[in-house]
């Protein structure tokens, strides 16, 4: 290999970012600068992005760590709305626990929890209009629950069983529901970002009133799609909200591997001239307020907003991941912004709207609902060896009409079904029907 002949110059150094703590280390986040409630002001909804660039390094907060709401961002929600928020947070946590266990019991191939990040999907879903279009990533199951998507359908999808509305074609949790304005989850990262912009551009071109909102993690802000999306949104002033859930970890890569050592993820919007704000992602009221602010801007032709949700991924990336092999075990316990569910609960108790007994009761009700729904879902079959759907369905929906070459391949698969799978698939059917 050829090297420089200028031996009198200092040698260059390649920087490889490294997280502060690895397994065995004692996590200590005291160096993270957390602003007090009220420090980050609330700009007028018509403000120009250039006049509020400081928001990209601020932190929108409403709840302090004792559960007291305050500051200019307090959305002053009614207690019934806050209780509904808590209800969904408890519900999704119960759902996640149950589905995680189902995967561990071999009932399905894969699951992803949103523990610790519940506020980043439940609060926005409640702040948006029910028909605003969602272009989700894979950890926004809370949105579907807020929009009353049937939990049974979610489970059927997770089990890829015969009632799965997606016909067993997608990895578990890759939901889709046009009726709930929830776009089909891809599984590829950040591809939904420019799609959300295109949808929002279409809505604006058609002089509609609906806006789009999309989610990705801090890790996938490194994808080209993220930057294409921001460019397009800025160029066309698209009515879209970009949510970046900065949960500190992209599988085993800490946020520094995505560029987080030098700047906040919100500040990526600044160069595009996009309103960019940063919110305490573990504060459901702050997330609600930030989303409402961004949605009002979008709806009044004030353009796109990038919201960085500063949060922490409490669990593994997915059931296929073991975070204890790359990060300090007690990181979540030490996380300075606490747990979003506990913080909302503490707030409601302080307000006199809630107490421990009712909370225990709610948890039990949710657990019971989840268990009962799981039983119903399992009557439709669990993943097992799969093959809950007719073989023909594998060839449908590739195109609107099946071309000859797929028809031929379908016939081949049907012949294999008779010669290879006939006893097995009969057994499966029997099982599913009980």
């Amino acid at each position, binding site marked *: 290999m050829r090297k420089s002949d200028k031996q009198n110059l200092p040698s260059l150094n390649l920087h490889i970012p490294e997280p502060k703590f690895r397994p065995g280390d004692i996590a200590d986040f005291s160096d993270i600068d957390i602003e007090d409630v009220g420090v980050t002001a609330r700009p007028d909804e018509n403000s120009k992005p250039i006049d509020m660039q400081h928001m990209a390094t601020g932190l929108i907060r409403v709840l302090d760590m004792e559960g007291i709401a305050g500051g200019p961002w307090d959305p002053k929600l009614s207690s019934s709305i806050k209780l509904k928020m808590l209800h969904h947070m408890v519900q999704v946590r119960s759902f996640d626990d149950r589905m995680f266990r189902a995967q561990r019991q071999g009932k399905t191939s894969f699951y992803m929890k949103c523990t610790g990040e519940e506020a980043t999907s439940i609060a926005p879903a409640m702040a948006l209009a029910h028909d605003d*279009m969602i*272009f989700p990533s894979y950890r926004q199951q809370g949105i579907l629950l807020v929009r009353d998507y049937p939990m049974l359908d979610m489970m059927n999808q997770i089990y890829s069983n015969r009632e799965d*509305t*997606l*016909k067993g*074609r*997608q990895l578990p949790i*890759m939901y*889709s*529901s*046009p009726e709930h304005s929830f*776009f*089909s989850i*891809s599984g*590829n990262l950040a*591809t939904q*970002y*420019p*799609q*959300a*912009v*295109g*949808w*929002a*551009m*279409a*809505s604006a*071109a*058609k002089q509609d009133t609906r806006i*789009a909102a999309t989610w990705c993690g801090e890790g996938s802000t490194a994808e*080209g*799609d993220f930057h*294409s*999306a921001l*460019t*397009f949104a800025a*160029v066309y002033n698209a009515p879209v909200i970009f949510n970046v859930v900065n949960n500190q970890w992209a599988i085993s890569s800490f946020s520094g591997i995505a560029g987080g050592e030098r700047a906040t993820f919100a500040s990526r919007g600044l160069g595009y001239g996009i309103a960019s704000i940063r919110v305490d992602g573990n504060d459901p009221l702050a997330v609600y307020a930030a989303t409402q602010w961004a949605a009002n801007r979008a709806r009044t032709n004030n353009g796109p907003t990038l919201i960085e949700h500063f949060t922490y991924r409490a669990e593994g990336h997915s059931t296929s991941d073991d975070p204890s092999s790359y990060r300090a075990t007690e990181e979540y316990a030490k996380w300075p912004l606490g747990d979003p569910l506990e913080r909302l609960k503490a707030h409601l108790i302080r307000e006199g709207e809630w107490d421990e007994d009712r909370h225990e009761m709610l948890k039990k009700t949710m657990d019971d609902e989840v268990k009962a729904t799981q039983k119903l879902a399992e009557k439709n079959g669990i993943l097992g060896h799969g093959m809950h759907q007719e073989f023909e369905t594998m060839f449908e*929906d*590739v*195109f*609107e009409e099946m*071309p*000859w*070459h797929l028809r031929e391949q379908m016939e081949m698969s049907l012949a294999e079904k008779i010669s290879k799978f006939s006893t097995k698939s009969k057994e499966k059917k029997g099982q599913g029907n009980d």
Partner: protein
Amino acid sequence: MIDMPSSPVKTMNMIDAINSALDVMLDRDDNVVLLGEDIGYFGGVFRATANLQEKYGKRRVFDTPISENGILGAAVGMGAYGLRPVPEIQFADYIYPGLDQIVSEAARIRYRSAGDFISPMTIRTPFGGGIFGGQTHSQSPESLFTHMSGVKTIIPATPYDAKGLLISAIEDNDPVIFFEPKRIYNGPFTGYYDRPVEPWSKHIASQVPEGYYKIPLGKADIVHEGEGLTIITYGTMVHVAMAVVNEHCIDADVIDLRTLLPLDIETIEASVQKTGRCLIVHEATRTSGFGAELAALVAERCFYHLEAPIERVTGFDTPYPHSLEWAYFPGPVRITTAIEKIMKD
């Protein structure tokens, strides 16, 4: 062929015909929108969208940032909204930054959502060489698209077909990639690079109805009939093959595929079973090119009718060269040599 429509006929080159198809569809369907680099006010680097922004407004025909990934990603979102976007990728060579939005998104949305969402976009993109475009303005990447499941692949060879196929593509509810052989935008280039090119006006297929008509996707056109040989080709190479056939009075069926996927296998089978000899001609690189698929299909379905090995005439497996363009191009010499070989056996 299909019924001739009743609207007045005009002499059009490929660009005129494509512009006319876009005009007709913008007029018929408010949900059709055009987007791409330089396509708005300027009308496109090849002028395919000339005057359309003026006629239909900026919200329906607009310029985009130089981001194929953004163009195609936005088009997927527009399709999900209910629009029928027709993105232009300025050169097929530029499509790769947007490939993921085609392969993993547009092509699979119907499937992965079990029909909840569709991606009814038509991607127009000029392709192929013969214009001294070097390695970044000459490629023929069609086999990438036939290889992925869920995309229809169209390549017209005449103005008449270009318009009718493009209208069908835009009305189709699946994603379509519409490759425009840019070497024949202005005239049916025969591969004799040292001879003057005839303008389209001297070709019958330049007589194009001004109004709406469709050519069905998935139907090939037999542009020359014969008994001794089947030549399967598409795009620019239809005219190159035809020039050889005419020059040497070859007794051949010349099949212009027009649609690569879904493929008109019936026309191919019937022809090869009749002639017993098969030559496949395309400009794209040879290895894993679409010709390999065609050769496999012919071998599988017509093996006992074959009297000679199937031959392929293709571009070489090199990047598209600049100064050696005519050495690379699978022109009349290569085709004639292959025909001689096939007919000898």
